[in-house]
């Protein structure tokens, strides 16, 4: 049997299960490297892939004088109370990943941000893919089964270089009294691709985020997918914004939201600021139990040569779909679960199979509850 990576020995069995649901592998069998931060303590940092480096952020800032230019460059220190709090920390926590020119990881890197005891866990992450690099990252954010109350503040800056590609898949597994405030931004250079996936299937008190991707170079592409379920008591205020700032840039924002009594605010905004740009928003919500799904797709065209569209739909499962499956022998519950599973089943082009599997597993685990 493969041994667990160092620094994670103290994690209890109940929490191991929670981390697994957040897409993390303690044995790192299908990962090329790992970063584990428990509360404010970085317990493990490793990367075995050639050309890809991972550091705790404090170390990266000490080691590379130029790193200072990347920190707080895409996200402003003064953006809001969250960023000010993170910026005020004497010893920054979080990780830096540098994928050097032309590097590529077949197995993804994993980053674990695990909240156990502290009232506020803060991180500042910087991810850089240099020219032609291809970097796949999975971030599992979870709290301990014993953690009642707490908050997570996270600032993340993604730099996608010329013809580079970053895919980032974030899976949340928090608790009913946890507040979560990620603050992320990406800048994508010529020919680069930024693919961001967010999955949240379990209870949380409040998540609020609105990451933005600036497509700054010709032909850059951004795609955001979010797949979320809000149980009663959860308030998810989620958005994605893409700025089409260079010609031939292309954006897609896809969201699937389910409420089982909680609130989902599904925001999205694409701004077509240059000629020969395209953007599409697809926003679908399913109300299983009375709750709120508030879809706010915004498309903003500023020049004649931009083509933007959106489709949004919120409702319950169609009766004729349930009955169609019942006519094939499924009972009502099975039919309903099958349709919900289909609703959440978003195939993400360009994502490595191991990560698609991880997303499928997170949804499958939640399916038991439908």
């Amino acid at each position, binding site marked *: 049997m493969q041994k667990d990576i160092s620094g994670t020995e103290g994690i209890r069995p109940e929490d191991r299960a929670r981390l697994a649901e957040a897409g993390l592998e303690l044995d790192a069998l299908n990962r090329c490297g790992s970063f584990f931060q428990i509360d404010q303590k970085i317990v493990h940092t490793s990367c075995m892939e050639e050309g890809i480096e991972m550091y705790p952020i404090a170390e990266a800032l000490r080691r590379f004088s130029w790193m200072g230019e990347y920190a707080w460059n895409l996200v402003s220190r003064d953006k809001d109370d969250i960023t000010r709090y993170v910026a005020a920390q004497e010893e920054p926590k979080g990780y830096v990943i540098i994928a050097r020119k032309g590097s590529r990881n077949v197995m993804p890197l994993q980053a674990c941000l695990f909240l156990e005891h502290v009232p506020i866990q803060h991180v500042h992450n910087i991810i850089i893919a240099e020219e032609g690099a291809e970097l796949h990252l999975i971030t599992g954010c979870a709290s301990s089964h014993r953690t009642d109350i707490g908050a997570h503040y996270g600032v993340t800056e993604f730099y996608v270089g010329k013809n580079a590609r970053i895919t980032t898949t974030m899976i949340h597994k928090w608790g009913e009294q946890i507040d979560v405030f990620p603050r992320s931004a990406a800048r994508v250079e010529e020919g680069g691709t930024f693919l961001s996936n967010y999955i949240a299937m379990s209870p949380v008190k409040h998540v609020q985020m609105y990451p933005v991707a600036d497509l700054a170079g010709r032909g850059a592409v951004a795609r955001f997918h979010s797949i979320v379920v809000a149980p009663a008591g959860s308030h998810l205020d989620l958005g994605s914004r893409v700025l089409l700032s260079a010609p031939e840039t292309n954006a897609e924002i896809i969201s699937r939201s389910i409420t089982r009594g909680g609130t989902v605010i599904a925001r999205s905004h694409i701004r077509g600021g240059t000629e020969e740009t395209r953007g599409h928003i697809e926003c679908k919500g399913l109300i299983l139990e009375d709750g709120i799904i508030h879809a706010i797709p915004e498309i903003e065209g500023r020049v004649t040569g931009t083509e933007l569209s959106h489709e949004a739909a919120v409702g319950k499962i*169609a*009766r*004729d*779909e349930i*009955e*169609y*499956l*019942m*006519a*094939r*022998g*499924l*009972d*009502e519950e*099975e*039919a309903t679960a*099958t*349709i919900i*599973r*289909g*609703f*959440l*089943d*978003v195939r993400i082009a360009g994502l490595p199979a191991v990560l698609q599997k991880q997303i499928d597993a997170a949804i499958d685990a939640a399916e038991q509850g439908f």
Partner: protein
Amino acid sequence: MLTIENLHVDVAGKEVLHDINLHIGEGETHVLMGPNGSGKTTLIRTIMGFSNYTVTKGRILYRGRDITNLPIHERARYGIGMMFQRPPTIAGLKLGKLLIAASGNKPELVAEYAASMHMADFLERDVNAGFSGGEIKRSEVLQLMLQQPEFVMLDEPESGVDLENIALIGSAIAKLVEKDRHIVHRHKSGLIITHTGYILDYLEADAGHMLCDGEIRCHGNPREILAVIKSKGYRECIECKKI
């Protein structure tokens, strides 16, 4: 196999079927004809148990058991199956997954039958999403082949199907109702709605019924009924009050 007694059915607050009586014996295949809007689809959807179809009077017996108020899936599990005329699209649900469920979890059969219906390339597609008329029919027949109902109802199986597909679908349907077996060994029954009668080129029906304005106006030899419709249209049936 199936007996319908004095059946009255409301759809959206209006009585669509009035006093229907019908008996289909084991191993028999019947055809149901009638002008548009006469209530043919309503009849088979009522037999399947869909929620918009309210039985206000009468009953439906299947193998001697009163199924009038059973939920759809129980009827399906007793052996009743149907081909939908306009099935819904189910986003995200792959046809292959539905077929495995319909087959009672026999994935090995799915691949084989899908190939025989030229649907192997559709297993990873969302159910009915962007399917053409002929593809919908092939998919519906394929689902029934895997479901193996004892009593199968088909709603206009030949409509919207091109010549190339009609032979494929026609012979698959003939198999569904065991027309490939000797009459003595035939146990499956069917009820087929047809406008054109093309389906009769692929299987012999044992009886025909003419539905008009929600009433069955006549029973008889299917080919004879069809011949009358072909020469005189439905007018004669609409005016005919005899039964």
